[in-house]
């Protein structure tokens, strides 16, 4: 592994200098002449029917060119979930509709010559609503007596809309009841997680225009360009052939841009007016009308034997998908499928989930994707069973976690909205991660010995995690690679770098394979006209799937280069040939030829052809990365404030292709997780309106909120991944809730059952404990 020349080495992000120089790389950095600006009107009611809309005054307002409502747009049911086809999300959404299902549902849009005109004209739309009784609590929603949210007949793919059930999951392995009965200790607890949001600093934004041939071009801030093309075609009833989607640089996604929210509206305006159009969400719209993280209520029951071996686990997850069911089924699936296999020693496992529609904001994909919510419950329950047995929770985890060579029946039983694929773990450094993390935090000196300093008390907590690398046998990526005269290569691939550095990882994979420098790879990505297909940036699939496709293309190109060299060298085979320093060398004869010479020969001189290839990658494997998280916190018993002092994330992501980018993924995810644990929360009015749609009142962290952060990498080699790599993007957002929850218990003996762990909740729990 150490003989890699480019893999695992420090390589600058290939778009880094351009981004740091403020080059016009983002969707909204271009201005097209004659652009129409689009603004949206939202429902002020959580549940209502639009009896009528009067847009006559709006249409007369200066600069207004188009007003769209349910009255003058196609009514085609679809899902906004940017998932592979057929999408495992229900078809329950229209571009516009008479029925309003949450405060923030889209009523109408206005397209005008300026943004100001569009915004002013919106105010003149007269809407007559009949309000309906709303339901906000998912438990109430699915009881069978609640108002029916999706009562239109066209809905398909939802489990039981009459009971507001978007989806339902039931998986059983062994016999949990018997397992609990035969256990020496049992814990049963319920944990709730809140509405939270991704908040990429660049909001959703789309620009559409017609090219010189009248084809629709969609320049959009998306994680899923190919799904955008397919779903826009579907929801507008136009052929895929008529659409080109371009993904420029993207200002972060974290899941919220795995949705088709603005593209179809903007496209429709362009198609109807023949003019460029642009929609840019404000921060408030982002909070109210874009996607959120599914709030969960998870009931977990664990049984264990005296020796600490887990015997039975049952998870019941109630997920609130809000007004529409996008990603509802699959996020809930992952609350089980990405958590339960971790404890494969338990032979009796049950996972049940109900995914409830409510008249609340729409939940969707968010980094961690259900695993975060599952681990919030499971990893605290693990500490509780350890406590009951009088064991160190670290030791209990070591006894029970999955190991290299092992499998879990859950892999097969529970996929993403369907049956999964059997997996055997081929790389796992969890024991090493636990040992190294424990040493770094001082676990054995500190655990169980809270340190008091007046009213401030310190404690430590930990948790362990796994995720996956793509959806096995579903996610596909492809790449095309061609050679130029100077020995440089054009890599055209569908992989969707949304800020992660995937384009740099891709260049490194090509460079390693062909013995060149990463700078010699010109990367152009995710343009549906120019690059081959890729499902996009989600499910921790970038390096594994898109990178896997790049490797396949590069290996084919390598073979083509070697064949040309064989001819030129006059040698019988290529087995002693190596590619390094931009040359092919024969170790047998000592002959050598530069890639540039080979390109000139093949393009202009002899046996002329383009050296180039396409590679596609889909895998039956989804190798899990692993992580052990440790945290030391300080709780102020007077104020209730929890202050993380030190956070250690020990991670096994296989071979880290670009260690600096890996570090950024780890820290970025865990810092997002810290504020999910401590500060981030949607506050709602009684009528279901979000009251804090801005960064003053919805607190994401800044530089001054950071604890000391230590990242530790335990390198393994994952044989199913490109150059030994697994994923790293999502896993580290899962740790902060359970690790801090466990540390809080270690410090002052309280356990909170609802996130975020605000000072108010801490104080309340302290009061309760005193009674």
């Amino acid at each position, binding site marked *: 592994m150490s003989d890699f020349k480019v893999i695992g080495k420090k390589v*600058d992000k290939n778009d*880094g200098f351009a981004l740091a*120089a403020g080059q016009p790389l983002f969707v909204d*950095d271009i201005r097209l002449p004659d652009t129409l600006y689009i603004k949206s009107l939202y429902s002020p009611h959580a549940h209502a029917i639009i009896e009528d809309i009067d847009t006559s005054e709006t249409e007369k307002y200066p600069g207004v060119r188009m007003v769209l409502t349910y009255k003058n747009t196609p009514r085609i049911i679809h899902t906004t979930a940017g998932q592979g086809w057929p999408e495992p999300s229900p078809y329950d959404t229209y571009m516009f509709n008479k029925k309003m299902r949450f405060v923030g549902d889209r009523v109408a849009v206005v397209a005008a010559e300026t943004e100001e005109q569009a915004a002013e004209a919106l105010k003149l739309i007269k809407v007559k609503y009949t309000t309906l009784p709303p339901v906000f609590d998912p438990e109430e929603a699915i009881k069978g007596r609640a108002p029916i949210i999706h009562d239109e007949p066209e809905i398909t793919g939802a489990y039981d809309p009459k009971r507001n059930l978007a989806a339902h999951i039931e998986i059983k392995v062994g016999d949990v009841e018997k397992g609990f009965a035969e256990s020496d200790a049992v814990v049963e607890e319920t944990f709730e997680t809140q509405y939270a949001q991704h908040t990429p*600093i660049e909001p959703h934004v789309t620009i559409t225009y017609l090219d010189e041939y009248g084809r629709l071009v969609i320049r959009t801030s998306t994680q899923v360009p190919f799904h955008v093309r397919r779903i826009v075609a579907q929801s507008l009833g136009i052929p895929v052939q008529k659409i080109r989607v371009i993904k420029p640089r993207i200002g972060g996604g974290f899941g919220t841009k795995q949705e088709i929210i603005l593209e179809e509206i903007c496209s429709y305006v362009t198609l109807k007016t023949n003019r460029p159009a642009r929609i840019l969400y404000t921060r408030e719209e982002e909070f109210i009308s874009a996607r959120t993280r599914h709030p969960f209520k998870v009931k977990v029951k664990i049984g264990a034997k005296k020796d600490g071996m887990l015997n039975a686990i049952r998870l019941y997850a109630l997920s609130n998908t809000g007004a529409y069911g996008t990603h509802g089924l699959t996020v809930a699936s992952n609350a089980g499928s990405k958590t339960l296999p971790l404890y494969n020693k338990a032979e009796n496992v049950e996972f049940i989930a109900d995914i409830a529609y409510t008249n609340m904001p729409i939940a969707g994909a968010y980094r961690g994707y259900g695993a975060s919510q599952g681990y919030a419950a499971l990893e605290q329950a693990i500490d509780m069973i350890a406590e009951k047995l009088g064991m160190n929770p670290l030791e209990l985890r070591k006894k029970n976690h999955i190991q290299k060579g092992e499998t879990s029946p859950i892999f097969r039983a529970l996929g993403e909205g369907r049956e999964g694929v059997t997996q055997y773990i081929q790389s796992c450094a969890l024991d090493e991660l636990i040992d190294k993390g424990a040493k770094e935090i001082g676990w054995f000196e500190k655990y169980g010995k809270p340190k008091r300093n007046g009213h401030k008390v310190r404690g430590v907590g930990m948790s362990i995690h796994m995720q996956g690398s793509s959806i096995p046998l579903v996610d596909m990526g492809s790449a095309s690679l061609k050679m130029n005269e100077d020995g440089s290569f054009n890599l055209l691939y569908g992989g969707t770098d*949304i800020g992660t550095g995937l384009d740099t990882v891709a260049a490194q994979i090509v460079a390693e394979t062909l013995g060149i420098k990463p700078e010699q790879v010109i990367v152009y990505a995710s343009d549906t006209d120019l690059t081959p297909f890729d499902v996009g940036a989600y499910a921790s699939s970038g390096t594994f799937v898109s990178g896997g496709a790049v490797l396949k293309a590069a290996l084919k190109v390598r073979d083509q280069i070697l064949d040309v060299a064989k001819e030129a060298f006059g040698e019988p085979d290529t087995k002693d040939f190596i590619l390094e320093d931009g040359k092919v060398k024969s170790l047998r004869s000592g002959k050598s030829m530069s890639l540039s010479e080979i390109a000139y020969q093949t393009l202009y001189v002899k046996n002329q052809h383009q050296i180039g290839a396409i590679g596609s990658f889909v895998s039956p494997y989804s190798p899990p990365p692993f992580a052990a998280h440790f945290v030391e916190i300080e709780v102020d018993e007077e104020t209730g404030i929890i202050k993380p002092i030190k956070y250690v994330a020990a991670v096994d992501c296989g071979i880290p292709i670009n260690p600096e980018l890996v*570090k950024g993924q780890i820290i970025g995810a865990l810092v997002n997780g810290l504020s999910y644990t401590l500060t981030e929360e949607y506050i709602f009015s009684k009528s279901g309106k979000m009251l804090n749609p801005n960064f003053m009142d919805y607190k994401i962290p*800044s530089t001054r909120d950071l604890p000391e952060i230590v990242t530790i990498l335990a390198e393994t080699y994952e044989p199913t991944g490109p150059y030994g790599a697994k994923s790293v993007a999502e896993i580290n957002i899962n740790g902060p809730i359970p690790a801090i929850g466990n540390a809080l218990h270690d410090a002052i003996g309280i356990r909170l059952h609802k996130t975020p762990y605000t000072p108010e909740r801490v104080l309340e729990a302290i009061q309760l404990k005193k009674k």
Partner: protein
Amino acid sequence: MKVKYIINGKEETYEIHPGEVLLDVLRRNGHSEVKGNCYLGTCGACTVLIDGVPHTSCTILAAKVNGSEITTIKGVGSLNNSHPIQKAFVEKGAVQCGFCTPGTILSAYALLKKNPDPTDEDIRKSLDGNLCRCTGYVQQIESVKLAVKLLKEGKNE
């Protein structure tokens, strides 16, 4: 009304509405390197230097700063002539999506102009107003420290 600024050393005259904020005026006139759209001064992506001091351009009326010197990221360094802070940000992996990067680098640039030897606390304070959702800030802070070193080495040459 007309306003005049010196932007990145070059005099520019714009026609504006009196109610417009600086961010919108700059972007409309081709300064797309200034990002941001929270209009509350909360995310910091729209940070520019006004007479050397970092401000969120989304909360300042363009008319109010008529006559000022304005520095955007393009006044710090360019693609082919990067400033040491820009180099440090790339080197340390502090640029992920890059949307907050121009504003963050401007805050760091203003700090290092004023204080070439900042403490960790100084760095954290100066970047406090620039929200980043990708990096978790650690590599940004490391970058500023590296830039301090690069700037010192540059002076010794």
